[in-house]
């Protein structure tokens, strides 16, 4: 009896949980989002003081005890923005890499504190203000040939860019340092990621080549006006290199044990994201970012060792398909303000620290009008009488920046049973129009422009159930559901009444 009671309690507990929040499976690709005005102490997350690139005082510093190549010590990347996308709480085994590129399942390197590892990328930090984007990557190199490199790759979500870095791709550009070869051909294939531009840095472990950096735009991107990188007030032209700013640093006092670990920090103009895009595109941008380590210098060939966020599926050295490595960052809140939020890809998990605000709940405006299909009369009420030829026009206005994908509407009765489902997609007769800025528009073929504010979906319910008969007299619940580009769903409920 007691066991029965305990089981009942367990069942009750399980089913009392609001399971509208989908759970995900990864245990290694957590991304923590930290927000302004939240009192955060990096030490609470398991970091040591000299490991915090973004310090507890919200200043992005060079690691302590170190100087840059030019002998300049201290902070060079002050951060004044409100947002931080920070790397996971786990120091170990996050950007995990096989220690044997011929055995993608052998990924024990990072389990050892003393192993000089092979290109693991363990952390990727990203933040920005109104002028600059700051990135820091903690990686681990070894002597797999000269010119071990780090690449930061960005997809602005515009549908342009390239998905193939696998070979001598002219779209990427000629290697001016090695005539006849192409830059950054590192055997990478992307999935759901179209690289628009990337930053490459490299470091020579023997000190013979002190390291440089450059930014390259994908040349087939429309209006490629951002072929420069600005680092520490120095403008570096596309396909040239900076010999005065290289970006690797020892990152903490552990260098005697892990001498090849590096932190790369880079600052570049935020206009790299916005150049060539419309205001609407900028406002709705969800850019994606990947960090990866490669070997073989800036030229063609070489190996790709690791990605960050981690490649959960392991790497296939013969076909380095990047399937679950990027994460997505909303760029603005739709009003020009930098937005907070992050969406990892596939199995990864987002952890929101207390006090954070989720970018998953678009503020929607729902309303209903009775529409008499016989005479075209419209009344602003949510009661309709099918016997009198009336249907009900259920409307939902969704902010453009919410980027709701495939919204649908389901009619429930008060028993919680589904009466009818109306889907907002092509060919559904219930959808009579989509209104953008007050103008009836076919949203499927709409070319977004600056000034777009919201999309209104109309669902016309004739009062019939999915079986084709008029539903009983009563109150009903219209439930709008959708998924934002953040990958998380939202719902909005609205009561209506059918009269017979």
């Amino acid at each position: 009896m007691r066991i029965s009671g305990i089981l009942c309690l367990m069942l009750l507990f399980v089913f009392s949980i609001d399971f509208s929040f989908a759970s995900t499976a990864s245990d290694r690709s957590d991304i923590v989002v930290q927000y302004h005005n939240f009192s955060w102490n990096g030490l609470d997350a398991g970091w040591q003081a000299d490991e915090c690139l973004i310090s507890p005082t919200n200043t992005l510093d060079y690691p302590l005890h170190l100087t840059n190549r030019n002998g300049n010590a201290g902070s060079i990347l002050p951060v004044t923005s409100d947002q931080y996308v920070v790397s996971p709480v786990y120091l170990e085994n996050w950007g995990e890499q096989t220690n044997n590129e011929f055995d993608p399942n052998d990924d024990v390197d990072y389990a050892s504190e003393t192993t000089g590892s092979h290109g693991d990328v363990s952390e990727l930090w990203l933040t920005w203000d109104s002028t600059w984007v700051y990135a820091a990557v903690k990686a681990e190199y070894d002597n797999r040939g000269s010119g071990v490199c780090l690449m930061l790759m960005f997809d602005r979500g515009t549908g342009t860019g390239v998905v193939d870095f696998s070979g001598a791709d002219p779209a990427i550009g000629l290697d001016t340092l090695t005539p006849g070869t192409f830059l950054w051909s590192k055997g990478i294939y992307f999935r759901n990621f179209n690289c628009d531009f990337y930053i490459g840095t490299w470091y020579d472990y023997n000190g013979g080549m002190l390291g440089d950096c450059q930014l390259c735009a994908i040349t087939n991107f429309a209006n490629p006006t951002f072929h420069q990188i600005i680092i520490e007030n120095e403008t570096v032209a596309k396909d040239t290199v900076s010999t005065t700013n290289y970006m690797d640093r020892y990152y903490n006092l552990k260098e005697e044990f892990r001498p090849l670990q590096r932190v790369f920090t880079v600052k570049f103009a935020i206009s790299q994201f916005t150049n060539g895009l419309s205001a609407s595109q900028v406002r709705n941008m969800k850019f994606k970012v990947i960090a990866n380590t490669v070997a073989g210098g800036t030229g063609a060939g070489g190996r790709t060792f690791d990605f960050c966020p981690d490649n959960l599926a392991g790497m296939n050295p013969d076909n380095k398909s990047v399937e679950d490595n990027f994460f997505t960052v909303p760029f603005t809140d739709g009003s020009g303000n930098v937005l907070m939020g992050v969406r990892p890809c596939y199995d990864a998990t987002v952890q929101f620290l207390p006090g954070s605000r989720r970018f998953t709940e678009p503020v929607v405006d729902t309303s209903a009008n009775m529409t008499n299909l016989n005479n075209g009369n419209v009344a602003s009420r949510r009661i309709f009488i099918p016997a009198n030829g009336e249907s009900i026009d259920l409307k939902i206005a969704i902010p453009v920046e919410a980027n709701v994908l495939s919204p649908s509407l389901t009619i429930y009765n008060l028993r919680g049973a589904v009466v009818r489902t109306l889907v907002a997609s092509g060919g559904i007769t219930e959808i009579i129009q989509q209104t953008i800025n007050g103008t009836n528009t076919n949203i499927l073929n709409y070319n977004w422009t600056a000034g777009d504010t919201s999309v209104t979906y109309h669902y016309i319910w004739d009062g019939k159930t999915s079986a084709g008969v008029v539903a009983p007299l009563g109150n009903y619940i219209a439930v709008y559901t959708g998924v934002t580009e953040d990958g998380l769903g939202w719902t909005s409920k609205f009561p209506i009444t059918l009269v017979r």
Partner: protein
Amino acid sequence: MKISIRKIGLASALVVFASGLMFGFDFQESAGGIATALGGVVLDRDLGGLNALYNPTLIAATLTNALSLQADVCGAYQPYGVDGINVCSAGVTYARSLGLFNAGAGLGFQSELAQGGLNTIRTYLCLSGDFASFSRLSDLLGFVDNVGASLNIKTVTYYLDANMTGTGITPTLVNFDLDADVTASFINRMLEVGFMGSDLLAGEKGFTGASLSNQRGLILHGMVQPIHDLKFIAAYNFGGSSEVIDNDNFVGSATAFANSYLGMEASFFDSIFVRVGLNEGRLTGGLGIDAAGFTLNIGVLPISSLSLYYQIDLNYKFF
């Protein structure tokens, strides 16, 4: 031992029977925390004052003292999290023993309030009778403990809370209907079986003159209590609408579970109750606490796309 085996066997049989059929009740009628937790099986014994709404037979059939007076209020504020809709119920029952015969009566009230929509007020007047010592009438029926019957007279009033000018309808509508039930208990009330007809007239008319019939319920219900602290109850509505709840079902497709309801209640020290149920295949659950004459019950039905349906009721037994 023989009795125990028989009890367990009967319980198992009924559970299997109920699982294979499944049926339920309409949650839009505020039914209280017990019924919600038990998957909508409102034909359980001892619903307190809410017996006036759902099974008046039990008013007299469950009389254990010379007199009984119970009151119950229940409701839910914005069930499913929908702004503007609230439901509530209240009931009071009175019963007394007349020797071999128990008599009872009850009054019930139920409302569904939808701002700007359809408001529904239901009233219940019920009469209940029970042969408490039926077995004395005949040795041949010695295994029968008691047989009870009830009649429930209901009014349903609809109000349209909106400007309906131009629609040609009157914003108020009144309907009448009847429920009747016969229930028998066996083997020291370890087993209970009954048959209920709800909305027998099925003559409700809509605002536009449309018939709202096809709502008649013909419900077979049963309860097995193999041990004091454990109940299994079930019901099947032969006259139900067979509405298939195609989402949010624990079992996936609900076709086999349409109009079927199953519940289980475990009690601890006769004061704490843990309940689970299946409402047309959807899992329900809840808790009850009995103290100082008051019983507080909470029942929930989680629906992922609608969030939580819940009911809270408070019962007081005067004597």
